[in-house]
Structures are given as C-alpha cells and as structure tokens.
C-alpha cells in the first residue's frame, strides 16, 4: 500500500487499455440494461444473471464444438440462448407487471435473479470455469514499445462495433424509432395502432441479447463463477444512473468512467483500486444527480 508505485508511460498505456476493454464489456451490458430501462421502465436485476448465463453458455458451447472456430460459434449461439430464456420470461411474467410501481419491479426482477442464479448452479455447478481465447486472439501485439494483449484490443473493437450498430438500429430503423417513441409515451404509440406489447417484448429481448453478448465476450478474460452476476449488476446500475437513465450514450460515458478509474486506480493504490470507480460515481451523482446525459425518465 502506498503512493510510491513507480510507473512509466508503458504501464499507464497498458492499464488504460485494460480499463478500456473492461469499459467496453460494461458498455455492452449496460446499453442493454439502459435500453430496457428506457423503453420498458423495468430496472432489471436479472440482467446480471443473463450475463452470467451468457458466460456459462459460452463455456459449454466452446467445449462442445471444440475446434478452432468453437469460440466464434459460441459467441453467436450463447447470446441466442439468453434471448430464448428472456423471451419466455417476458411473455410469461414481465408482460403482466409493466403497470406496477418501480420498487415492485425491482423486487420482482431480484426474485427472478435468485431463480436464475440457482438454475445456473443446477446446470453448471459451483466450480470455476474458464474459456480459452481463440487462437488468432491469443498473445499480444507490441505497439509503441509496449505490448498489448490481442484479446483486449478485440474487445475494444467489439465495443465500438456494438455502439455503431446500436446507433444505426435506434436511429435508422423503424423499430428503433417506435421503441424510442414508446419510451416517451407508450399510450400514444398504442393509439397509433402499433402492438405495444410486442414492441416491449422485442425491446426486452434485445436488451437481454446484449447482456448475453457481454457475458460471452467476457468469458475468456475472467474465471466464470457463480456470483459474477451480483458484482456486475450493481456496477451496471450505477453506470446507467450516472450516465442518465435510459440513455445509451450515457451508458457509454458511464462505462468509460467506471472502467478507466478502476484500471488507473490499480496503479495508484492496488489494494483499494475497487474504491476509485465507486468514488467517481459518488462525485458524479453529487454534481449531477440526474446523470451526465439526458435521462428519458
């Protein structure tokens, strides 16, 4: 412990890269959470469980296909499994509860996360699991005199790709426009003859897809275990709040703040690095209580 850790430009750049790649995972998950919050007004705690399921499914699928392209197949299939689960949950349970107050929804989604957590325990057990990164993303690239792990660079690329795809989806497609309209005034959208119930279902499923995708992408970088849902979801909620509820770009800004402060905190105070992102959230909330960007609530 202490402030005297010597670090140079190379360490700084390395940590920054780690922070950025972690931010991108957070962004992908938080964008989904934020989308669901914005359109459906559901604070979905089970989002973290879906992320965990995405990671575990990636483990099983990449083991099942066991080839050079196993990871890529898993990356496509695991989020689809999450989509399937979330569609069932939406049609069977969520769609009856949209009119309830937020606190009730919060407790309902927590109950759901308890059930999903135990389901994961039944299916995959309580051991630690790990997924190997695909061969072409193993090792590191040396750049400007320091080496960067390839997989982290890939994560940053994937995060940017998701951001662009989301922007196109929300702004340029008809469904994106309808879902944005439903976020502002759901009754009016219904009056225009649009089946709001299915718009909500589709929006929910899309948000959950992002949770599953985040889980699949994070799988090679962490040890997959029970409880990863709890650590993630609390961070995700804080990020979405400081970004502005329901604002996807807010989720990006929040994720960057959270991920980068954590990784740079490692350089300053390795033992207490985890404190820095929380402190950043406190500062943001005190200065701008409603979040950095405009909230749709």
């Amino acid at each position, binding site marked *: 412990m202490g402030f005297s850790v010597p670090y140079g430009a190379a360490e700084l750049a390395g940590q920054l890269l780690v922070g950025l790649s972690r931010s991108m995972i957070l962004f992908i998950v938080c964008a989904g959470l934020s989308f669901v919050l914005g359109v459906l007004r559901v604070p979905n705690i089970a989002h973290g469980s879906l992320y965990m399921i995405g990671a575990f499914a990636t483990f099983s699928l990449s083991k099942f296909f066991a080839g050079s392209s196993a990871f890529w197949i898993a990356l496509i299939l695991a989020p689809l499994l999450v989509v399937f689960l979330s569609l069932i949950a939406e049609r069977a349970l969520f769609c009856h509860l949209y009119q309830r107050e937020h606190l009730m929804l919060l*407790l309902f989604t927590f*109950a759901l996360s308890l059930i999903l957590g135990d389901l994961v325990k039944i299916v995959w057990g309580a051991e630690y699991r790990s997924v190997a990164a695909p061969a072409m993303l193993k090792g590191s690239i040396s750049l400007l005199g320091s080496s960067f792990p390839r997989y982290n660079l890939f994560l940053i690329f994937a995060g940017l790709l998701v951001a662009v795809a989301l922007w196109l989806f929300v702004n340029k497609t008809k469904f994106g426009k309808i879902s944005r309209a439903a976020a502002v005034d759901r009754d009016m959208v219904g009056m225009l003859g649009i089946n709001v119930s299915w718009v909500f279902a589709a929006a929910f499923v899309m948000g959950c897809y992002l949770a599953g995708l985040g889980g699949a992408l994070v799988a090679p970088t962490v040890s997959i275990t029970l409880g990863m849902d709890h650590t993630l979801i609390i961070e995700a909620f804080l990020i979405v709040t400081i970004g502005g509820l329901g604002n996807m770009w807010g989720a990006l800004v929040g994720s960057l703040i959270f991920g980068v402060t954590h990784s740079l905190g490692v350089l300053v105070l390795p033992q207490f690095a*985890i404190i820095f992102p*929380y402190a950043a959230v406190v500062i943001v909330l005190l200065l701008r209580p409603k979040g950095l960007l405009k909230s749709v609530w």
Partner: protein
Amino acid sequence: MIHSKPLGWALAFFIILLILPSIVPRFFVYILALIFVTSLLAMSLNLLVGHGGMFQFHHAVFYGVGAYTLALMVTKTSLPIWVGFVAGPLMAAMAGLIIGWFCVRLTQLYFGMLQISLGSLVWAVVFRWYSFTGGDDGIHGIRMPPFLSSLTSSYYFILIILVISLILLYLILKSPFGNTLQAIRDNPDRCAAVGIHVRRHQLTAILIATFFAGMAGVLFVVLEHSVFPDLLFWVLSLEIFIMCLLGGWFTFGGPILGAAITVSLRTFVGKYTEYWTMILGIILILLIFFLPEGVMGYFQGIFKPRAKEGAQRRM
C-alpha cells in the same frame, strides 16, 4: 385502551418466547435468536422504507458497521465489552449520518443509487483491508464475556434488546416525529409547503434506523461470534428489503414476519435442498402477483372492515 388486544397478544407471545428455550431443542433456540436479530434489522429498515418512503437501498452497510465495530473492539482493544455494545450502534449511526447527509439531497431512485455507491465504498474498504478487518476472511472466534457464553443466555440477551428496541421504535413511530415522517412519505411537497424541514426529518429518521441496524449487527456478533464482509454486501440489503415486502411494509410488525419467513425458509428448505434461494424467488414472485400488500398487509385487509365497524360502534 384501543391497543389492548394487540398488546395482550404481544405479551402472550413474549411469555411464550421466554419459556421456549427450556422446551425446544438447541437448534431451534439458535434459529429463533437469528430471527430476532434479523427482525430488528428489518424493522429498522422499515422505519425508512415503509414509514418514511425513502429508497434505503443499502441498509446492510450499517448492520455491518455495527457488527465490525464490536468485533474490532473485542479483538483489537482490551476495553470492557459494554463499550463495544454501545459503540457498535453509535458507529453505525455515525455512518448513517455521513452517508445520509449526502443522500437526502437526492430523491427516490437517485437517493438509492447514491447510497449504494457510498455503501459499496465502505464494503470495498472492509473487503480489501486485510491487516485491519481481515479482508474477505472476516474475523472469527470473537470471545464474548461469561454471561453471554451459552446459547440460552445470548438468546435471552437478544430477546430483551429486541423487545426494548421494538418498544422504542413503536413509540418513535407514534410520536409527532413519526407522524411527520409518514406525512413526508405521502406528500413531500405539501409537507415542505407547510414548513416542515423535509431533509432534516429524513436525516433524523436515517440516524434512528441506522442506530438500530448497528444494534442488530452487535446482536449478530453476540450470536455468531464472527463477522465477514458479506454483512455489508448489497445482496443482503436487498434481502432485508424483501423481508419488509414479504411481511407487509405498511404495517408495524410485518418485517418481523418477513424476517421469520426468510430465515426459516433458508434453514428448513436449506436442509433438504441447497437451492433454497430458488424457492424464495418463486415464493416472492407468487407474492408479487397475488399479495402485493404483503402477508400481514393481506390479513389486515381482511380484518380491517371489522375493526372499523367496531370503532364506529364505540363512537
């Protein structure tokens, strides 16, 4: 006396609890004591959530602070034990004052989120500071004085503290302060308009609630002789929240019922299957669908029409 009937029930219940340890097996005494500790924690939260309408999302922090204060005082200093018993709740109230001072500036969900981030700061420090708090291992084998060495004696100690705390909480709730707090819950803007200092009342409520949460933490150490960082983790906070919902958060005794249900579920379902949280989740979902007022709220709803009739007849 309007309250004579519930009071009579409570008294009868208390007497039963007093003689129970000499009848039932040791294991049940332990479970009952655990229910008492959890009840006090849930009751303290309900003062803010049910009666104050505040989004106290990270109440477990104050429970943990109370427990850790006692644990550290016993293991690191040689002060008499009662200093720890007093310092636990006081430290929790102090943490409540500091965290609450920031939180009351915001409302609703933002209040809750700020509290989660501030509370997570405390959790992170406890979780990582190995040399002082034991980090994620926690502190185990905390020695209690001779008069609390047996399970039965700690049972009685916990029961007495619980009863005193419940009486105090009841009196606070029925005082002008308690009424003002409930008025703020129902309409903060109007309260502010008639000259009530909303933030100050909320902060006072947080101070009181965190004091009792710290008390519950102290009792936890008396019962378990150990502390660990999960006591301050947000999952526990949500669990307490659920206890209030389960029992019915607009009733006085609801959280006790909720705590009893949750603790018994964990123990008795946990005996048959390790997947007891799934059962809890299913029960919770059924409850949200069918009994949105909570178990006790539901029964009060049934009995209320009759109670009103009686009141009218008396008039």
